[in-house]
C-alpha cells in the first residue's frame, strides 16, 4: 500500500486547483472502437447512446484482421456532448476493448458515397465535369440519370452533394466515415 516516500510539506492553495470538467469541444469527433465480435455488441453501444442522450452522426462496423474483433467507427458532435463522458461510458461495456478519439490532424478519414443524379442531355456535361473535379466515377448511366461513386472526407462529399443537388438529386447513399491514424502506430 506504499506510495513511495509519503508526502512533502510543501503547501498548496485551494485557489490553484482547476476543475476537470466534461469538455464540450465544439468539433466533430471520430471514435475508433475495437469490440469483441459477440452477439449484441452493437445493440449495447446503440442502447448506451440512446439511454444517455448521445446522438451518433455516422456509424460504420467492419471486420478487422482478427476474426474475434470488429471495429466500429463513429462520429459525433463535440458541441453537443462531453466526449470524455461518452468514452468513459463506452469503456464500461465489457465487450469494448479499446477506444481512440482520433485527432483530425493525425488521421486519414474516408467515406464512400453513391449519388443518383438526374442528368438528361442538357445537364449531363456539367454533371460529368463536377464528377471529374471531385475525382468521382460514373458507375451507371441511363438516359435520364447517372450514378456517381465518390470517396473522400465527409467535407468533400458534402461539397459534391451541394454541387450536384441543383441538377436534381434522386437519391444519395453514404457509408459514414472510416478512419485510420497516420504513421506507423496502430489506430
Amino acid at each position: 500500500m506504499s506510495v513511495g516516500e509519503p508526502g512533502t510539506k510543501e503547501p498548496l492553495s485551494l485557489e490553484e486547483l482547476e476543475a476537470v470538467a466534461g469538455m464540450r469541444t465544439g468539433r466533430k469527433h471520430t471514435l475508433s472502437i475495437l469490440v469483441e465480435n459477440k452477439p449484441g455488441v452493437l445493440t449495447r453501444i446503440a442502447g448506451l447512446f440512446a439511454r444517455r442522450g448521445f446522438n451518433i452522426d455516422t456509424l460504420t462496423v467492419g471486420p478487422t484482421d482478427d476474426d474475434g474483433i470488429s471495429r466500429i467507427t463513429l462520429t459525433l458532435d463535440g458541441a453537443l456532448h462531453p466526449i470524455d463522458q461518452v468514452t468513459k461510458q463506452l469503456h464500461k461495456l465489457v465487450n469494448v476493448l479499446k477506444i481512440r478519439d482520433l485527432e483530425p490532424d493525425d488521421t486519414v478519414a474516408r467515406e464512400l458515397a453513391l449519388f443518383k443524379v438526374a442528368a438528361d442531355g442538357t445537364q449531363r456535361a456539367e454533371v460529368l465535369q463536377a464528377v471529374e473535379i471531385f475525382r468521382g466515377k460514373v458507375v451507371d448511366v441511363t438516359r435520364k440519370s447517372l450514378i456517381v461513386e465518390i470517396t473522400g472526407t465527409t467535407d468533400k462529399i458534402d461539397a459534391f452533394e451541394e454541387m450536384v443537388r441543383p441538377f436534381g438529386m434522386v437519391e444519395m447513399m453514404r457509408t459514414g466515415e472510416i478512419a485510420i491514424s497516420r504513421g506507423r502506430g496502430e489506430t
Partner: protein
Amino acid sequence: MRAVDAVMECLKAEGVDVVFGLPGGANLPTYDAFVDAGIRHVLVRHEAGGGHAAQGYAKATGRVGVALGTSGPGATNLITPITDAMMDSCPTVFITGQVRTELLGTDGFQEADTIGITMPIVKHSYMVQHPLEIPRAIHEAFYLARTGRPGPVLVDIPVDLSRAEIDYEPVTDVKLPGYQPTTEGNAKQIRQAAKALAAARRPVLYVGGGVVNANASEELVQLALAGRFPVTCTLMGLGAFPAPHEQWLGMLGMHGTRTANYAMDEADLICAVGARFDDRVTGKLSEFAPRAKFIHIDIDPAEISKNVPAHIPIVGDARQILAKLVVEYRATAAEAGRLDEWWQRIEEWRERYPLRYDDSAGTEIKPQRVIQALYEATGGDAVVSTDIGQHQMWAAQYFHFHGPRRWIQSGGLGTMGFGLPAAMGAKVGRPDDTVICIAGDGSVQMNAQELATCAQEGIAVKVFIVNNGYLGMVRQWQELFWDKRYSHVDMGQWPDFVKLAEAYGCTGLRFTDKTTLVDDIRAALATDGPVVVDVRVTREENVYPMIAPGQAARDMVG
C-alpha cells in the same frame, strides 16, 4: 454431466451457499439439479421478492446475491430488482431460463427477449448459445458482479442447452480483455488530495455507498480522525461512518440535517468518496456547494465530473485510496487548529437546528417516535431495511448506524416493496443478527407475499409497519406543492395487517400506545419467528427538514 449440474458446480466454486428463486418450465432442469446439489434454495412467492432478497443478502454480507427465475414472466418479474441492483451497485447474479433454442424468436410460450429487455439495466449479460459456454459465463458473471463497480449480471440459458451433456472442466481463470477496472489510485493525485485537505479551512468528507461496497469504513474513520474532518453520508452511505460521533453531521440531501447541508454549502473543500452527486443530494446543481473545490474518489471513472466537475479526481478502490490518503495526509503535518473556526460554525448549526418533531400530547404514536423507540429497544444493534417513503427518511434520520452493512436500502431506484424481501435476504445471510424491516403500509403490500416464504423457511424477520393509512410521501408532496389536493393517496385501513400476518403463518401484533412502545418492541423482537407489527401512527405528519425539489441547500424548510 448435464450443463445444469455444471452450473451447480460453478455456484459452489463461487462460494454460493444460498439462492433465491422460483421454478418454471424453462428452468426445470436447473431445479432438478438443485435436488442433489447441496445448495440452499429459498423458494420465494414472486421473482421480484427473490431478486430483492438476493440484494438484501448481498448488501448485508458483502457477498454476491443470486436469484433465479424462469423465462418470460419469470424474467420480467426480475426487472425491478435488476434495475435496483444496477442503480445501487449491488453485486448480484441473475440466472434465467429461456425457451429452447428452436423456439427463440418465434414468440413461443413464455418467451421474452430477456437479454434485450435487460440490456440497459445490467452491468453485463450472457445469452448462452452453446452448452459448453455455460460454466465460463457463470464464472465471468460472478467476477463482473463483485469487482470494479459492482452490479447485476444476468445469464440467460435456453432450456435445451441446460439439459445437454457436457464435459465439465472447472474454470479457474477469468480473462476479460475489455474489463480492467483501476483499483490502485494515482499516487500523485492522492498526494495532491492530501495537500488540498491540509490547506482546507472548511473541509467536509461526503461519503456514499461506494465506501460500504469497498469495505472501506475503517480507513474512512482513520482519515476523518487524522484530520478532524466533519463527515456526512448519503442515504446509501449511512453506517460507513459510525453514528453518533462528534464528527458526524448526519445525512445530507433532501431530508438530511441542516448541519450537513449547510456545511456542504459553506465548505471550501469537499472530499467525495464513493458518492455520485445524485440530485437528491445536490438539489439545484448550479447552487450546490458554490464555494467548494472537489476531490472525487470513485471506482467508476464515468462518475468523475459527470454531474459536478472534480478538481482532484482519483479513480480506484476506496479502501486502497483512503489508506494511502491517511498516510499522505499525516505527512503534511497539517495543523489541526486551523479547523477550530469551522467546528465552531458547525456546532452553532447543530445547536440551532437539531432534528426535531412535536410529540403528541396523548398516547398517539408519532412516526418519528417509532424509529427512536426501535433504536432504543435494539441499542442500534440490528440490520435495518426499509421501504420507500416517509418512514424511510425518518429511519435514516432517527436510527443511528454504528457500522456498515446494517442499513439495507433501495436508494437509487426507490423501489416500494423492497424492504421485506431485502430483510429476508439479509436475515438468511446473517441468521444470528436481529433483522428489522421498517415498512410503509403502502410499500409493504407490494411484496407482502414473501411473509409466506419467511414463515415456511423460518426466516425470523421483524417487520414494523409505520402505518398512517397513506402513501405518505406522495401525500406530503400533494400537501406542500399541490395545494393539498389529495389525489389517490388515502389507503384507509386495509388490509388488517395482524390478520394478514397470521394468515401467512407469522405473528401479528398491533401497537397504538406510545407510552409502552419501547417495551412492546422489545417483546416483539423477543418473539420467535417472523413477526409483523402494525404500528398505528399520526396520519398526517411531514418529513422535515426538506430541500424542495430543484432548490438549494440554503433554502431548506421545516
